């Protein structure tokens, strides 16, 4: 293999002579660097072409679509119920929230009111999912920039919650527990007990995570003042979730357009000041604490008994035990899955505050059992739109921090 001229002139060092004499003048010019698609910090398969001047990024071009599976096209070919498992595979770290966002959108389309107990169950599980998402983010983001310890701690506790999901719906990650009009099944006493015990065990541990990071000088130096974006720019780019709130905008759909059991819970929305990665980290940690608060309130307020699925036989599924014993229920279930329900003509947009940001579904219905068009507003995709803007002027190593600061998951980004 032959080195090209340019490289040989820069790096030629004759071992016989002292270095000062042999080194030619150092030339500077722009360098193109391909980062990814198999870089471990890209959380999936993302490639970014970085234009560098020395170690500084002058321009970056994200290249996406490696994980594009045409989910929006698939949605047009299946019934509304059949699409729920597809939503699991969007943001595969937080499947529950995707289910939730999708079911809420279809409920808005069909004008269904969810029973009270189901609303509480949904809120509890969504907040458990938010804790998992933020734990995952804390661990991997710190791991990406070299702080390894906290990863083991967050993943240890995440395991407990994933096992809890396993007991709840039979799957740890691809859950599909939400249904249009309610949830698939009620909590068992054992689940309630485990969740309460977990919350008591977990609350002091949050301070432990914090110590690992905030006492780590390298981690603090690599997050404070990195990936700064002003509030105006963040809003203009359409950022959402902690990425937007880090810049001081308190936009949180749980407060702005309250849904489910959130209006009945007391919680605050942490807001940052400087718009840097450190502030976004702080917001996520505070959100974990708020989630714990919300779950505790829900567990206390939740009606002890009640249906967990709306009674709209033309739309919602019959209870599973009736399906196995009752012929009519079985027919109902079969027809709902094979033909779907008859949706009215119209279009809706419904946004839900997932832990990454606003996850929205825009559904156009032309009647019949299948959506005519379904568009997913994925926060990761929209955050990537600001990547070039946010990375300019920072070092190559900061690119990893910026991926991390968005909490990017490519399954959702590429859809």
């Amino acid at each position: 293999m032959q080195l090209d001229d340019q490289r040989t002139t820069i790096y030629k060092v004759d071992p016989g002579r002292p270095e000062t004499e042999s080194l030619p003048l150092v030339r500077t010019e722009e360098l193109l660097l391909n980062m990814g698609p198999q870089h471990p910090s890209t959380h999936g398969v993302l490639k970014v072409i970085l234009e560098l001047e020395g170690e500084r990024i002058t321009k970056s071009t994200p290249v996406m679509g490696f994980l594009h599976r045409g989910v929006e096209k698939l949605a047009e070919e299946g019934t509304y119920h059949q699409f729920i498992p597809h939503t699991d595979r969007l943001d595969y770290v937080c499947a529950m929230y995707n289910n939730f966002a999708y079911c809420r959108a279809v409920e808005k389309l069909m004008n269904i009111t969810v029973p009270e107990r189901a609303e509480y169950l949904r809120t509890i599980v969504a907040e458990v999912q938010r804790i998992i998402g933020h734990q995952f983010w804390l661990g991997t983001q710190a791991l990406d920039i070299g702080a390894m310890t906290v990863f083991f701690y967050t993943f240890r506790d995440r395991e407990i919650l994933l096992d809890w999901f396993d007991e709840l719906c039979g799957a740890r990650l691809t859950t599909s527990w939400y249904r249009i009009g309610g949830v698939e099944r009620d909590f068992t006493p054992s689940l309630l007990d485990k969740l309460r015990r977990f919350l008591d065990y977990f609350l002091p541990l949050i301070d432990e995570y914090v110590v690992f990071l905030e006492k780590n000088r390298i981690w603090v130096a690599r997050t404070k003042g990195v990936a700064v974006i002003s509030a105006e720019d963040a809003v203009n780019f359409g950022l959402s979730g902690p990425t937007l709130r880090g810049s001081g905008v308190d936009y949180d759909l749980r407060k702005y357009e309250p849904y489910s059991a959130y209006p009945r819970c007391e919680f605050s929305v942490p807001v940052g000041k400087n718009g840097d990665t450190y502030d976004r980290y702080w917001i996520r940690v505070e959100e974990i604490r708020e989630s714990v608060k919300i779950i505790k309130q829900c567990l206390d307020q939740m009606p002890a008994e009640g249906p967990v699925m709306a009674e709209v036989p033309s739309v919602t599924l019959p209870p599973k035990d009736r399906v196995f014993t009752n012929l009519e229920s079985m027919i109902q279930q079969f027809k709902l899955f094979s033909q779907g329900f008859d949706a009215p003509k119209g279009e809706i947009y419904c946004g839900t505050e997932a832990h990454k940001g606003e996850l929205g579904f825009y559904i156009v219905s032309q009647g019949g059992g299948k959506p005519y068009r379904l568009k997913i507003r994925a926060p990761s995709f929209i955050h990537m739109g600001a990547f070039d803007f946010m990375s300019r002027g920072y070092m190559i190593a900061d690119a990893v921090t910026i991926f991390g600061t968005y909490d990017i998951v490519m399954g959702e980004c590429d859809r």
Partner: protein
Amino acid sequence: MHPIAERIQREFAEGFVKAVEWRGDLAVTVTRKALHDVARFLHDDRDMDFDYIVHVSSVDWPDDEERFEVVWEFYSIRKRHRIRLKTRVPEADCIVDSLTDIWKGADFMEREVYDMMGIRFRNHPDLRRILMPDEYTEGYPLRKDFPLQGKGWRDTFEFLNEGRG
């Protein structure tokens, strides 16, 4: 009619086509010509104040004369209201004004619309495919005439046809 729609109709008598309110969502359709001015008005006007772009999308209506519908959704963080702005374009000339100069976030979203539906955006800084490969030439996957299983390419995978007798 919704006060926001009324205001748009007053300001843009020619560009306004219709306003639909359904399930609490307001959707305003404007002509392609007026689109950029309406968007600028929505962003800059004090009472509108739509500073946040939610999503850009597109719908294909193959039987209509103006086949494609481009959809923008905006939100106002200060005023807490929402609007869906829509415009129609014919297939022969499917190009609309880009709104990237008003909302920077529209950049990637419009690229996605171009990639999936083949609608071009005038004055877009970097209109390339975003999710499909750059060299993909078999069309625009979210159009209704694009089959779910792809256009022929898949049939060239030999291992899929093996054992099909």
